[in-house]
């Protein structure tokens, strides 16, 4: 039993020590994300083949020196498709998070600084939006507007707004209750000025942490939509789409395409969520230290 107590005490010590820096794992995770971004940017330079070059004489080739990760059911080079696929697979969640963070933060600040009924109504909207699953909203949008990358990204961006707005609002409301801000309100400082000069910098670390965490979720949701055939459309290269196209090969024993595309998603999502957790740890540390 005493081991439980000691373990708990040690955990507490470790937590405070760890939260100071990014740690080795944090640096590795950042490097992994950096590499993925680099692969996406340099895809035309480093990809050995054209990702859409079909050759029905070379379908389902295993890993060989001339095709490092093998070829898919249409004879396209899997490595080249992975590198080009990094573009849509990273750009999509980046746009989702950017739109959701900007709109979400703006709405959260309006709610926090207005207070009263504006805050109550906005909070209710955030709560309802939070309950509506993002994937379902995207499926609904796609069914009306037709499948495609842009529709999926925009629908998810809207669905992610409450995810960021809710937590930013609660931090901003906490900040508003601090004496220096109530003093500014009392001396008649304009609301937009308070929001821009004082609230925004105060919520920025939270926005950053929550956006990073959202990036991982958005990546999985977008890949899921492409997997369902509702997001990125063939013949474009995308990791989620590669898994669904690779499933036909899997049943015949050709595991390469689905496995490598899946691995790419898992590695990037794991790295991003690790960074997100570290950022979130720092935010709560700041808040306690204040």
């Amino acid at each position: 039993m005493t081991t439980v107590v000691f373990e708990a005490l040690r955990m507490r010590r470790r937590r405070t020590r760890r939260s100071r820096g990014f740690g080795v794992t944090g640096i590795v995770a950042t490097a992994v994300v950096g590499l993925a971004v680099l692969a996406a940017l340099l895809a035309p330079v480093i990809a050995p083949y054209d990702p859409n070059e079909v050759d029905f004489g070379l379908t389902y080739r295993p890993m060989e020196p001339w095709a490092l990760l093998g070829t898919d059911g249409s004879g396209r080079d899997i490595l080249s498709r992975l590198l080009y696929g990094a573009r849509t697979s990273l750009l999509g969640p980046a746009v989702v998070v950017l739109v959701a963070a900007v709109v979400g933060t703006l709405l959260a600040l309006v709610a926090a600084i207005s207070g009263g009924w504006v805050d109550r109504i906005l909070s209710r909207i955030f709560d309802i939006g939070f309950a509506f699953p993002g994937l379902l909203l995207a499926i609904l949008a796609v069914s009306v507007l037709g499948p495609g990358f842009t529709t999926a990204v925009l629908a998810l961006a809207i669905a992610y707004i409450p995810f960021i707005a809710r937590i930013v609002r609660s931090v901003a409301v906490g900040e508003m209750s601090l004496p220096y801000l109530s003093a500014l309100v009392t001396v008649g400082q304009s609301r937009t000025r308070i929001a821009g000069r004082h609230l925004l910098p105060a919520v920025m670390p939270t926005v950053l942490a929550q956006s990073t965490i959202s990036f991982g979720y958005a990546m999985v949701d977008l890949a899921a939509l492409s997997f369902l055939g509702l997001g990125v459309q063939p013949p474009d290269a995308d990791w989620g789409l590669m898994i669904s196209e690779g499933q036909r090969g899997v049943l015949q024993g050709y595991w390469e395409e689905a496995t490598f595309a899946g691995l790419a998603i898992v590695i990037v999502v794991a790295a991003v969520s690790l960074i997100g957790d570290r950022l979130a740890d720092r935010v709560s540390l700041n808040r306690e230290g204040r």
Partner: protein
Amino acid sequence: MPRFIAIRVLEGLATLLVSSFLIFGALYLAPGDPLSYLIGNRTLSDEAIAALREQYHLDDPFLVRWVAWLGDVLSGDLGRSITYRDDVLSLLGPRLATTTLLIAYALVVIVVIGVGLGIVAALSRRALSDVILAGTSIGVAIPSFVAASTLISVFAVGLGWFPAFGPGDGFFDRLYHLTLPVIALTLASGSYVIRVTRAALREEAARDQVKAAVARGLPRGTIIGRHILRNGLTPVATVVGLTLTSLIVGSVVVERAFALDGIGALLTEAVAKKDFGVVQAICLLLITAVVIVVLIVDVIQVVIDPRVRERQGIAA
């Protein structure tokens, strides 16, 4: 307490009302007029077109249409499917069994294995605890469709232990067929539940009252059972309940990956075929399930844990 429950129920109803408005209103985002969108590139007889006008109340003003549609839904009339030429309700019926079994099976796995491993990780020595923790940090990053292709590749095609597709016949055969889908569905959320359980119990184990119990020399079993598990597992119950909502939405993807004939697979198919009546009905059904689950979790948490009541200022 009754007041709290009444408020929560009203809030849930409000969420459902707004969701139904979204689901109904989505039709009007379609380019062109709703009728031509509903017809799509099909050629329909005059009677079929008249039936569509009737089903969506297209001759009425917008708000009246919504209310009329909602009234139809509440009285059990979910409309007709254009592609299947059948009532949506009778399409959903048989498929609902597959989806319900999938989600129920997944929930059992999460409660038994997720919470169980979380307890083990919290109470065991460092080495085992670290192994479980490392496993979960990879597990949470594995989406269901990635797990699905790997599981099919290894256990269905490679080893031949499990079938790759289909729902099976009879109860036990169904469970056998659903095992790989359930693993794919629960890998990420189950890993998350393990982590939360471990963290909650660790926190509980560090409390002064536990230290005092150790100092008094109480047996280990009593300390774990009465002081750590009893207090520490109530927040876990909430997390498990909320995990159920992600299982409901996640089943859409898993059913497609394993070609199961559930309502999620029907939804994907209906979207591809632009069968909007079916899309609306399934979206509404899934949202209703999510809202009900969240409502139940909220109420249960307040009923079983007096500390939550106190924190939220609810009179018993």
